[in-house]
Each structure stands twice: as C-alpha cells, then as structure tokens.
C-alpha cells in the first residue's frame, strides 16, 4: 500500500472504527457481566443462600486481582508472579487498620490504597531493571521474601494470621451496608470491581494507556525510564480497593494459592498478543476468567478431591489452544456480529 495522504486517512478511519467496535464488544461483555451478577444476586437472595454469595464475592475479588495482573501482562507484556504480594499486603493493611485504628471501611480502603500504591512504587523500583522472564522471577522472589518475612513475624500473627477483625458497616452517607450481610457485601464488591474496571478501561484510552501498549509494541520505549517508572507505579495503583477484603482473615497461606491464582486467572481470561499497538486488550476477560475459575474449582472440588488435576489440565489446554483466552475467542465473533466491516484491519495485527 502506497503511503499517500489518502491511504493514511483510510487507515486511520479503519483503526478508529475498529477501536469503537472493540469498545462496543467490551461494553457488551461488561454489561452482560453486571446483568448476570444481578440475576444471580436476585436468585440467591430469594433462596436465602449464603455460601454461593460468599463464593461469588470471592470470585469478584479475584476478578479485581486478575484485572491487575492483566493490566501488566495483557497491556505491557510483563508477567508478574508476585501479585499475591499486593493482594496479601492489602488484606494485612486493611486488617490492621480495622483492628487497631478505626473500624471504618473508608479508613481501611483509603490507607490500603495509599500503602499499596507506595508498595507498588517500591516494588516497581526494584523490579524495573528486569525484563521478560527476569521480571517474572524478580516479582516471584520479592513475593517469597515478603511472604517468609510475614510468616516469621509473630507480631503479625505469624502462621496463624490475624484473627478477630471486626465486622464492619460500610457507610454510604444516605444508607449503609453491613459487611456481614452476604447480599450487601456482594453488591458493594460488585460496585467496586466494576468501578475499578471502568477506571482501568478509561485509563487505557488515555494517552498514558496508549503509551503502556506502546511499551509492549515498541521496546525502544524502554529508553524512557521515567515513563516506565510511571507505568510501574500504575502497576501499584491498581491495587486500590483491596481493603474490601477486610472482612476476611488474612493468613500467609493465602499467598501461595494466590500465586497460582494470579498466574492462572488471566490465562483463562485472555492473554498474549503480538505486540501490535492497535490491538486492544480485553480487561473484561479477566472478570469472566475469575468467575469461571472460581466456579469450576468449587464444582469440581465437590466431585473429586483431586480437582487440581482437572484444573491444571484445563489450564494447560487453554495455554496451548486458547492462547488468547476466553475474551480473545469471543470478542472477534461478537464484533463481527455487532459491527460488521469494522473487524478487518485490526484482525491482521
């Protein structure tokens, strides 16, 4: 194709159309996610269930972690094996705030947000020098050091973790939600996770977001260390909202399945692209991935105690056969259906 003004305009139009179609596809999936969650909440509330509420709440919280991993892996191509570190850190900070300082949801979430962002900067500063597998290993090593350190610190409850975290009430000014109420807590979590999703989706559309993608597409962007530092800070920032977990008991053991979870979730969701800047990633896949995986684990776990064999096999199959994951599989099909004609240019990416 000759590089004439006309072709340039044509390409730009096609790219813009493609991006709109992508956004539409994501929007449809995200909307469907909320709708499904609300239907579930209605059914579960009507049948007076608690367990499935707790499970679903957990799935949503994991979806938050999965989005965080996805932000790094999906957009910048950095595989963090140490994401459980931020997850556990958030849980511990919010537990400490609630227990020793103030049993306020907003205090916990605010302090956790600030502390996690700070930790993200520190971890980013340490990990910033490493690339590719070295980045994966350094994050893994960091998480191990912190895990062992917490495990050995008796002031933090050592191997028993922190117990006796107060049950709190989430104040929204006009109304409030008791965190111990399964329905209320589920809805609060849903709102927070979807806000997180919306914020990240918006962030990815800003010039900063495009820069993140550019880092992956064009490794020469590495020459801009300041930008990269900013990107890593964002890596820390996405750990906001971890305070929701206040109700649960942080135990160091959590860090281990956490590693598996963090590494596994985005995969079922979606993974890998070939580094084309126009190729958008689908954060929404992380939402579905987390829910599918949590559900699968629970269902298979009741059939057989050897559920890890099945989960592991599914995991491997999805790496081999669905490297783009669930969203990567569904979205092009959705796009073709809802916005015919717009799919083509981006497909070649």
């Amino acid at each position, binding site marked *: 194709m000759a590089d004439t003004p006309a072709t340039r305009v044509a390409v730009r139009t096609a790219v813009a159309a493609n991006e709109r179609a992508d956004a539409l596809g994501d929007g449809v999936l995200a909307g469907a996610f909320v709708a499904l969650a609300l239907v579930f909440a209605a059914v579960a509330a009507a049948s007076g*269930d*608690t*367990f499935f509420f707790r499970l679903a709440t957990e799935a949503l919280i994991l979806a938050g972690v999965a989005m965080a991993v996805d932000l790094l892996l999906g957009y910048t191509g950095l595989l963090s094996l140490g994401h459980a570190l931020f997850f556990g850190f958030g849980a511990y900070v919010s537990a400490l705030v609630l227990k020793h300082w103030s049993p306020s949801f907003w205090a916990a979430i605010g302090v956790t947000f600030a502390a996690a962002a700070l930790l993200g900067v520190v971890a980013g500063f340490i990990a910033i020098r490493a690339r590719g597998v070295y980045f994966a290993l350094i994050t893994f090593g960091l998480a191990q050091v912190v895990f062992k350190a917490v495990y050995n610190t008796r002031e933090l409850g050592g191997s028993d973790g922190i*117990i006796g975290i107060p049950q709190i009430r989430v104040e929204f000014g006009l109304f409030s939600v008791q965190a*111990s109420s399964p329905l209320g807590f589920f809805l609060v979590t849903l709102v927070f996770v979807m806000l997180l999703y919306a914020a990240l989706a918006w962030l990815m559309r800003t010039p900063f977001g495009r820069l993140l993608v550019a880092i992956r597409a064009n490794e020469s962007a590495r020459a801009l260390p300041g930008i990269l530092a900013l990107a890593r800070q964002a890596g820390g920032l996405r750990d906001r909202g971890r305070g929701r977990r206040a109700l649960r008991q942080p*135990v160091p053991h959590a860090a281990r399945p956490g590693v598996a979870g963090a590494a596994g979730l985005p995969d079922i969701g979606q993974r890998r692209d070939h580094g084309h800047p126009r190729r958008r990633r689908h954060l929404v896949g992380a939402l579905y991935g987390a829910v599918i995986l949590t559900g699968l684990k629970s269902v298979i776990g009741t059939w057989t105690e050897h559920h890890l064999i099945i989960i592991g096999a599914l995991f491997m199959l999805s790496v081999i056969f669905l490297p783009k994951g669930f969203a990567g599989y569904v979205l092009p099909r959705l796009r073709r259906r809802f916005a015919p004609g717009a799919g083509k240019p981006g497909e070649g990416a």
Partner: protein
Amino acid sequence: MKTLKICAALAAVFAAGQVQAQGAPIKIGVVTPLTGTYAGIGQQVKWGIDMAIKEINDKGGIMGRKVEAIYEDEEANPNVAVQKAEKLFQVSKVDFLTGTVNSGSTLAVGQVAERNQRLAATTVSFSDAITGDKCSPNVFRVNAKAGMQSAALVEWMVKEKPSPSVFYLGPDYEMGRSTVAAFKSAAEKRGAKSVGEVFAPLDNKDYSPFFGQIRAARPQVLYTSVAGNDTVRFMSQLAEFGLAKNLQIVGAAGTVTAQNMKAIGKAADGYVTGAAYSAELDNPANKKFVADFKAAWKADPDLYGVDSYGVMYFYKAAVEKAGSTDTDKLRTAMRGLEWQTPQGKKTMRAGDHQAIQDMYAVKVTGGKFQIIAKVPGEAAVGPDTCTRF
C-alpha cells in the same frame, strides 16, 4: 407487596421443611484436609467418622434418625475451611460440624459456627488456646490438648531420668513454638535442665545444620514437636548421623504417627511420647474397635482415627440426653457429659469444653506404640483458663 407475599410463602415452605426434618437424617458436616500436607490425618478422621456412623446407623441411628456425613476438603487452609464450613451450614444445613485439623482452621471454623448458631467439635487440633484464651461457647474438643500430652510425658521423663538435661527442637510456627514452650515450662518445674533450643522452618528438608549444636550441648533427652514428613527427615537424619545413640528422643503426640512411622523405619524405635491413645490399649472396647477398623480400612487406627470415631458417640450421647438437636439444649447436654470411647471414659469439662481423659506415656517398639505408663486425666488436664463463658 407481591414480593412480600412470595417471601411469606417461601418462609412457610422452609418452616414446613424444618418440621419435616425431624424424621430426616441428622447431617454431620466434616471439614477436613483431604489434600495437602495433612491429608493423611484427614484420611484417619474420615475413616473414624465413617465407621462410627455405620455402627450407629446399623443400631437404629440417633433417636430413630439416620446419621449422614458430608465431607469438604479444607486443604489445611483456614480460609478454605471457613468457606467450606459456611457452605455446609448454609447449603447442606448440617446439624453439627467436625473434622478440622490445624488449630487455625478450628479457631476460624469456630467463629463460623458461632455466626450460624451451631456447634462444632475438633477431634485433632492440639492448640491449648482452643479451650483456653480463644475458647468459644460453640466449640468443643473431644481430644486431649497439647498441655495434657506434655504433662503425661513430663511425668514419665522425670521418673525415668531425674533432673535430665533436655534439648528442644521445634518447627517455627505458632503450634510448634507453643508446644515446645509448654513442655519446657512443665519439664523445668519438675527439675529438668534446658541445654538449648532450635526452631527449624516448617517443611525443613535437612536438619543436619542443627546437629552440631545438639552434639555440643550433649543432652540426655531431645524433645521435638515437628510433625508429618518433617519427623521422617528429622529422625532418620538423626539416626544417619549416629546421634540417636545414648539420646532419649521424646516428642509431641503428632510427631510420630501411623502415617509416618513406616517411612521413619528403625529410627523411630525407642521414641517416647505422651499420648491419649495407643492401638495397644488393653480394654475390650478398644480391642473391638481396632479389629473392626482394620477389617474396614486395611489400616491401623491412630489417635486421630479414634478421636474422630469417638466424637460421633459424644454427639449421639448429647443428642439423646438433650432429646433434641437444638443448639442451646445440645450445648447444655454436652457440658459435663460422660461418654465411652475406645480410650475409656471421657468427661467434657463444662467450664472450657475440654474433654478430660486418662493419658499415657507410649514408646515405639518395632513399629508399634507400647504403653509404658499411665497418668490420670485430672492430673494431666490442668486448670480451666477459659473466661468467655
């Protein structure tokens, strides 16, 4: 308005279900590790409970109702245990919960039981805190706590070797440290001399880096609270280095068990522990229990198996005494309850929900635990330190 009516209708249906449940089976939820480090213990828990339930059902159940167990794998992880306990109470509507192994899980599940206004019992967890400063009105312990085991062991030790020099080696986590601390203070009170202590990481693979310190301290007795596969490594490496000679090794009740004894092999011979049970216990009820257990599962019962077997008879006796499965009535019935187990008569202390039973010093001889001394339950159990109820 319409929704209100539907809710009322639903409530009526549920209420009817509750009434009907009188003839339905009694459901026992068992949250136990079926996978992971403690899977071997979970296996014994399951065998013990399944066997007791079969016996009870063959004789007509509890107050005419069949008993049914529902198992959930807690992966020895308190977070998972909480989730599974919640599921059992809410979805399966179990009447009673048991099976948790690690003390963290028991404490966490206890909170779930309180929230759901049901009762739970542990048959394995040793931590003194469960019936001590972290006691719960909804949690009972039918097995002996760590303090009772060390009391029995100290009694035997000072009789055997007056004012011995003792070296301590424990795994570095809460249970390991508290077990060593409890034994140490009990032993020092009876004149033992402490010559050193080491805390190795949990799942430590090689203990030889600590052997220099042990040799240099020249103890007469080595006390350890490692468990599971850590014991296999620790004791076989001790033997490998020739350190086991002229050294009496003693330890916590969970240190050498039926699960790891075979792997330890000859290195286990001569090991002594304070125990609440031995398959060699010489009474008719135990003889029958051991024979039936072997016939059913092709394996020997251990402490966990027998206590998990016993908890079903504890529950049965309590329900029959209360005439109901109602939580409050049942709790009242359980307090002070006396019941029979293969270990002999047990009494549930009302003040802290800790079972009182006779304790023994047992020695491994040729792959079996032989009883070498007996300590009465009242002497071993120690004071009631629970202040919550």
